[in-house]
């Protein structure tokens, strides 16, 4: 397997990943535009899988597009919509087409999305999906049968460092690593002192950790996340900072904050990299990276 993302993780350099979202429909132009903008600026880009349980173009097709355009895709796979047979089949397909990175997720609830009456699956969970990947790498499927041609993946998962209570999340985190997660992308972290404490714990495990950075677009958006997004906690000081932005300048302030956080994470070597989520505003990711000021330094690391 050649996974430039895996190589990047192994190299010890500060890794940057981001996201692209497949469209609601067959018009791939916007996504392709984002891929074009990002492919040389990030080490890999996640292709989201019916994010927030909203039906879209499949992550597998999106990952293929990234690949075809010369980018490095991370295929997001949730356990919500496919049983073990469908997940295994998609892993075979992904592997056959050179999609070599997978992020294993449980998946949001169906009832939070736009097909509220659909049947949810959850035949396996995220840690079992990771274990399945490792099993399939040994040439076996979950039915105990031999595969004619095995798979090979750089597999990862997520963790929510700000979850309350945190202990059950940490047990799950450890199980994901035991099951085979090589890298972990975190839910958004805003309080970097809290994140440092999490990293003191997480460093003890053999997985690369990429800190989640979600672009704040306005003070109300930050308050909305605090109220509605599990495990995301934007400190009041950042909300105040967003609110202090001049009229029409909130987005620029958000980019500044995201860039500043990335810079701090990088300079203080808090973890192995960052995962930038600019939900719906992916075209701003290059600017965020630019703002962090680390890009020239990273380039010389290559």
């Amino acid at each position, binding site marked *: 397997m050649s996974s430039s993302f895996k190589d990047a993780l192994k190299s010890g350099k500060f890794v940057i990943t981001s996201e692209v979202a497949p469209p609601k429909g067959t018009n791939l132009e916007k996504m392709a535009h984002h891929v074009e903008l990002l492919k040389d600026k990030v080490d890999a880009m996640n292709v989201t899988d019916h994010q927030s349980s909203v039906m879209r173009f499949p992550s597998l097709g999106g990952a293929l597009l990234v690949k075809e355009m010369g980018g490095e895709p991370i295929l997001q796979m949730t356990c*919500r919509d496919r049983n073990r047979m469908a997940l295994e089949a998609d892993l075979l397909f992904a592997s056959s087409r050179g999609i070599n990175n997978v992020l294993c997720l*449980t998946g949001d609830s169906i009832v*939070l999305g736009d097909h509220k009456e659909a049947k*949810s699956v959850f*035949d396996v*969970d995220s840690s*079992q999906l990771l274990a399945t990947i490792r099993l399939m790498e040994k040439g076996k499927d979950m039915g105990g049968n031999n595969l004619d041609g095995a798979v090979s993946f750089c597999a990862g998962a997520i963790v929510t460092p700000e979850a309350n209570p945190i202990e059950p999340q940490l*047990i799950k985190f450890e199980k994901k690593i035991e099951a085979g997660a090589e890298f972990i992308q975190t*839910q958004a972290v805003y309080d970097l002192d809290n994140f440092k404490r999490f990293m003191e714990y997480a460093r003890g495990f053999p997985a690369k950790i990429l800190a989640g950075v979600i672009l704040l677009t306005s003070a109300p958006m930050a308050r909305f996340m605090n109220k509605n997004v599990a495990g995301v906690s934007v400190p009041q000081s950042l909300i105040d900072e967003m609110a202090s932005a001049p009229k029409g300048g909130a987005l620029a302030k958000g980019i500044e904050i995201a860039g500043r956080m990335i810079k701090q994470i990088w300079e203080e070597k808090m973890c192995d990299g960052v995962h930038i989520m600019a939900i719906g505003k992916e075209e701003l990711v290059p600017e965020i990276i630019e703002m962090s000021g680390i890009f020239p330094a990273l380039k010389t690391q290559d």
Partner: protein
Amino acid sequence: MIRSITQQKSEEEIDQLLSGLGRIFVIGCGTCVTLTHTGGRTEVNVMKEHLANKGKLITGDLVLPVACDNMTAEALNEHGQQIDQADALLIMTCAFGVQTIAKQLKKLVVPALDTLFIGKETALGQFDEVCAQCGTCILGETGGICPVTSCHKGLVNGPCGGTNDGKCEIDNAKDCAWTLIYNRLNELGRLDGMRKLQKPRNHQGEPSPGKFIL
């Protein structure tokens, strides 16, 4: 005691189900639906009045003691004529009752309720689903709290990322099963059970439909 938990269908749906049916016999039940106030004597009376206002002729009514038991010969004899005269039976019991009655009376049955789950009363007026009859019990590993039933996603390896302050991502009124399990196992000094990576469940413990022959 386990209970069949029901809720009344919308007025529109009941009206639509009874469209074209003029003569109705209403059946309630003295057990679970009486407890949940969805098909006891009071609700049967309200329904009769509602139907009469809509121009239906009520041929009679009956609140069976236990609708999921076969009807007694006495009940059948006493109400046989009124049942015969009806175009349909509007049944205000859970689906167990509806099916038991349908089998015996050979009349068109119309359910007035939706059966939500089999649960128990966990506090006054509060009913919770605690067992989904999956056929592959794992309560021994989860401190006696069932994640297959009590976790919205049926996860067996710990919580998802949607859990928040011990509540489920779909509804703040619903507890996160894995917070409960964590707390229980922690109290018991058995957190090692939660650390064990559980294999994918056998979802065909009893391939549907269930059948058990002694």
